[in-house]
């Protein structure tokens, strides 16, 4: 699809009415497959001829329906996503794919599946470890999904269509990297809020439209003059999935730039590509299990503990250096076991690099904004004083 409106304008449209494009495509006869988390192998969905759609929550909307079926001890983001789904916000979905990402996602698969009753649902039983035997098993898991989705599509998903989809998604990621890279300059050419909105928008559209939209956004942003003015602290945000721009805006409104992240959607999922391999499943398996560095995946320890920390968190150190980060905000949701247990280790790792860290626990709700603002402002003052 040729994008008619300006890139950022279209981004705003898709963010304001999230799912609007998927709804249109559904009206045109396309099938939409929803998914939670960056671990849904979107290439396989694209190769099947379906539109992969990332289900998101809403920090603005109180959770009013989810609790009838889902415990309140579930990650607040997942609860919010489910709440919107049972309210019919994603009524255009034909299917649902849920990966074994974390307990909150994995343990609610059946709740989603049985409550929504969509024509298609599939659980991707991704192993937790990144070692070679896990990789081999994960390939069989991906092939089970490929076969299952092919059955739903009424045709086998061929190697050629899968390779084509992998190339498309790699191109999409390259565009994201190009756009996110525009945050390297000081001040950055694109704000953290703008980037967050662009990444949210593309979660809801087909990959070919995303490539086009990102191209337009880059064309719009790149010519911006690198303005001079008051220096602001350059912040990196580290956390799980942040599918809302409110927190990023809060940081920037408090007098900083968000120039880097280790988030989804964000560098975590858009930095690693899938290699083009003879068996396309091989490249996909390696990307999702070994290249994406998420707290949910256990990295096998091969060296000393400091080397192990470097293996787990070295990419964060890389971003701190590449994007000249002044301070890191660890933004962790309540009830998030994978990221929550990492806080002492990752905090001390980042601090060992000489970079100050602010750790915040939040609940995926705008109701906490006042408290967060106070903490962020104090942190920025601390950075300014250095």
């Amino acid at each position, binding site marked *: 699809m040729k994008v008619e409106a300006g890139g950022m304008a279209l981004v705003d449209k898709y963010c304001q009415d999230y799912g609007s494009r998927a709804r249109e495509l559904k009206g045109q006869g396309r099938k939409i497959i929803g998914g939670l988390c960056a671990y849904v192998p979107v290439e396989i969905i694209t190769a099947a001829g379906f539109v992969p759609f990332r289900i998101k929550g809403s920090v603005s909307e109180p959770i009013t329906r989810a609790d009838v079926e889902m*415990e309140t001890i579930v990650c607040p983001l997942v609860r919010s996503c489910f709440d919107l789904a049972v309210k019919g916000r994603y009524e255009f979905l034909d299917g649902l794919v849920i990966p074994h990402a974390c307990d909150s996602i994995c343990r609610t698969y059946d709740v989603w599946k049985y409550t929504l009753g969509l024509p298609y649902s599939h659980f991707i039983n991704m192993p937790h470890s990144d070692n070679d035997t896990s990789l081999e098993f994960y390939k*069989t898991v991906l092939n089970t999904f490929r076969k299952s989705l092919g059955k739903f599509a009424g045709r086998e998903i061929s190697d050629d269509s899968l390779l084509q989809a992998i190339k498309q998604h790699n191109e999409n990621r390259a565009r994201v990297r190009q756009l996110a890279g525009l945050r390297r300059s000081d001040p950055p050419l694109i704000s953290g809020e703008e980037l967050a909105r662009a990444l949210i928008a593309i979660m809801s559209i087909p990959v070919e439209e995303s490539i086009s939209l990102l191209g337009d956004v880059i064309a719009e942003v790149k010519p911006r003059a690198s303005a001079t003015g008051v220096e602001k602290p350059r912040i990196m945000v580290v956390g799980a999935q942040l599918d809302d721009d409110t927190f990023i805006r809060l940081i920037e409104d408090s007098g900083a730039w968000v120039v880097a992240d280790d988030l989804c959607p964000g560098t975590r999922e858009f930095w690693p590509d899938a290699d083009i391999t003879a068996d396309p499943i091989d490249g996909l398996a390696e990307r999702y299990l070994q290249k994406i560095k998420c707290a949910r995946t256990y990295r096998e320890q091969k060296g000393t503990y400091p080397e192990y920390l470097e293996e787990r968190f070295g990419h964060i150190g890389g971003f701190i250096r590449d994007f000249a980060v002044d301070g890191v905000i660890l933004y962790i949701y309540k009830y998030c076991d994978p990221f929550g*247990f990492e806080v002492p280790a990752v905090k001390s790792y980042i601090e060992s690099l000489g970079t100050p860290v602010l750790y915040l626990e939040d609940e995926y709700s705008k109701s906490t904004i006042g408290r967060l603002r106070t903490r962020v402002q104090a942190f920025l003052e601390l950075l300014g004083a250095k």
Partner: protein
Amino acid sequence: MTEEKKPEERKKRRTATEAAGRVGSMTKAMLANVPQAKGEGRPIAYSFICCCYDEIIRAMDITPHWVENYAGICGAKRDAQRFLERAEAENLSRSLCTYALCGLGFDAWREELGGEMPPDAPWGGQVKPDVMLGSGQMLCDPRNKWFQAAQHYMPDVPTYDLNLPWPPYEEDYDYREVQDDYVKYMVAQLRGLVEFLERHTNRKMDWDRLSELVDLTDRTWNLVHEAYELRRAVPTPMGTGDAMNTMVPLSFMMGTQQGYDFFKELYDELQQKIARKEGVIPDEKYRLLWGGGLPSWFALTDFNYFNSKGAVFPAETTYRMVEALYNFDIDFARITDPLEHIAWRWLKFWTCRYDKTRQRPGSHPDVERLIDYIEDYQIDGVVMHEAFSCRSWHVGLIWQLNLLKKIYRDIPSLVLESDIIDISSYNEADTRARIDAFIDTLEAVKSRAG
């Protein structure tokens, strides 16, 4: 200061069976064995229950320290708070698994003291291990994050993460289509564990011994199944309160003769009680199923409170992680590799109700299990517990109850809310008021049924 806090006085709980009454001293001896083993130079492994490595560590003469058990003991003694607060001071959220927080708080404190136990550590404390054996499976995130987090305080202790997935229940394919892949993977993971242990503990696997222990575990599974099936009797001779004691030999002594012998004695005792028509309580009015959730270890007397209202729990899903192996659709005799044997046992445990589930439209294996127990044990109502800090065992309970009522029948249910060891989440008056109301409902339903 947390050091100055004294635990609240603990209430003694009455057990129905003599076997369950012996578990406290067994647990104490099991824990005391760990520092003794350490002193004798035997390797210690931080371990989790239900991770299929019981026989492996036993065959290699590695002593397990069951971290969940120790946290549970701290909770039962109402002395977990100071360790939870210590973990919180380390920036570990109080919303995370409180077993893990308790353990991590303890480890952080002990290492800060240069290896000395924190003051008045319950039952001698937990010693620094030589290895930590985590587990990544479809069951529990903290099991593959806890020990990684513990390395922050013990960077010289290596960890292994054992993956033990089982095929999910799906309508569009049969699990048998993929079961070989799962078993192959689990065997590779178990073999990796053996190599890891040999590398880090200087112990060699005794494969003949392993086969013997696998066989012992098989026999123990069958025996536990048969003993628990005796609880179908009316009046039931044993309730869930006791099962929260007998989970110690079930979960922490699997693959040992002591564990087997315990269940033989329990089996005999239950048979004798049945012969004497001796129930948990003299006048059994309501038979309840503990349908999900770990218990509040600091409030096990709630089971006695149920008893005081005429209610008993002949069955529970919690910790009943065994089935009769002879009911599985597999001939274990044809499997010569003990690791493969372990893998198939695990897979068949999780999938054993898949075929039955397909017979009831809209059903699910977890709900089929509830239905099985409701029918087999003549259940009048279902009680569940939602522990706020544990997503692994406590997410999906509401949905299971809803589905049960939709596809089976409307059966009275109660969901209690608290935690496994964080006593600050517990309100005894509120809990008992809810139990009272539930008993009223059960009575009303019984009256209506005539």
